[in-house]
């Protein structure tokens, strides 16, 4: 019995310790952002590594999702003679939900893992400790540029995802199947609000970029400095970032779209 109580206490303390470490690193990152902005090239290089190199997978997935959405919607909508609203449904689901969420999941897999592994190996190779020895703050020099780079790159990737998805749906529905092009665009045009739908989607993608990048950096920074430790941290990073993205998406959707017409 006392054994059980002791284990419960240990588990609680462990949760508190992990939460505390997250908060401490997050606060340190925010403090370091000011200094990181003074070296813009470090951030630009990270946007290149995180953003540019993810464009291919984002565009390819966006296209696939657009095609599949359009095809499935067409099969269902054609029964009710409502194929004209296909563009609207594709647009709303992409800009509001699928664009930010799928882009964030891909981002966690493509960019987040490389961040975790890089930082983890830096730690295992004692490069972070070496920086510390030279009185250079590793949070400021290594983590903050990656953090900012991720926050910048993620919305751009989400926008690309949605855009490519809508264009793919246009190609499939209008050019290949023969849905009327005028209705495809005009119903989409009148049903989608630039601020409410597109704007909130971008807010979402910024939040997801922050979450995914932060989780990846935290896992790398706190990784056990062994090959096994780094590999565990990489796996954990993807799992935690994906789950956090999905939960946060639900919360954000509940907040953003709870007031009709607002």
């Amino acid at each position, binding site marked *: 019995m006392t054994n059980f109580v002791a284990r419960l206490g240990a588990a609680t303390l462990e949760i508190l310790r992990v939460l505390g470490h997250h908060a401490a690193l997050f606060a340190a990152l925010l403090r370091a952002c000011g200094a990181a902005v003074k070296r813009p*090239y470090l951030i*630009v*290089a990270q*946007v*290149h590594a995180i*953003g*540019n190199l993810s*464009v291919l997978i984002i565009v390819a997935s966006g296209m696939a999702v657009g095609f599949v959405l359009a095809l499935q919607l067409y099969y269902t909508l054609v029964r009710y003679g409502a194929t004209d609203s296909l563009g609207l449904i594709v*647009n709303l689901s992409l*800009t509001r939900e699928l664009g930010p969420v799928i882009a964030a999941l891909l981002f966690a897999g493509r960019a987040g893992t490389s961040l975790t592994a890089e930082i983890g190996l830096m730690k295992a190779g004692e490069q972070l400790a070496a920086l510390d020895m030279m009185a250079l703050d590793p949070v400021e020099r290594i983590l903050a540029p990656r953090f900012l780079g991720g926050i*910048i*790159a993620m*919305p*751009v*990737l989400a*926008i*690309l995802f*949605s*855009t490519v998805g*809508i264009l793919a749906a246009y190609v499939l529905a209008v050019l290949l199947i023969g849905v009327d092009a005028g209705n495809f*665009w005009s119903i*989409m*045009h*009148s049903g*989608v*609000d*630039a*601020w409410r*739908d*597109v704007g909130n989607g*971008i807010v979402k993608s910024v939040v997801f970029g922050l979450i995914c990048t932060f989780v990846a950096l935290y896992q790398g920074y706190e990784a056990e400095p062994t090959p096994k430790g780094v590999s565990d941290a990489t796996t954990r990073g993807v799992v935690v970032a994906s789950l956090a993205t999905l939960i946060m998406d639900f919360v954000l959707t509940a907040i953003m779209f709870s007031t*009709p*017409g*607002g």
Partner: protein
Amino acid sequence: MGRKGVETLVGVFVLLGMLGLLFLALKAANLSNFGGGDTYTLTAYFDNIGGLKVRAPVRSAGVTVGRVASISLDAKRYQGAVRIEIDRAVQFPSDSSARILTSGLLGDQYIGIEPGGQEKNYAPGDEIKQTQSAVVLENLISQFLFSKAADAGTPSAPAASGTKK
């Protein structure tokens, strides 16, 4: 790759994002019509605004000419004050009336403007005097039920109404 090359690639990346955003905002959403365009404001008071929402369209002859800017309750008149923004290119005579209508059977509600015959046009900030409230389904049903009940209560009523014709 040199520093310049990386910077150029990132520039292309961000530019692509901006182009995508432009596409989403202009081609695939309704920012281009009445989003900060040249408009003027009119106010209309309704006894009941029904399910009218902010940013609902304002139509005349079925053509969208503006949007609802804000909805609030006028504390003195106990009426819903609806501010609408109308495209400056479209002017209405100063006795035009506003109605709250529904597009389709279950569609969204919008404001329909019926132009009047006056020479003078509405000036920005004017109030639309003649308004007609939204049709509330419960009121319709209760009216219908009450008239049914009245018919049932006085059996002679149908006959009486029949003699009037």
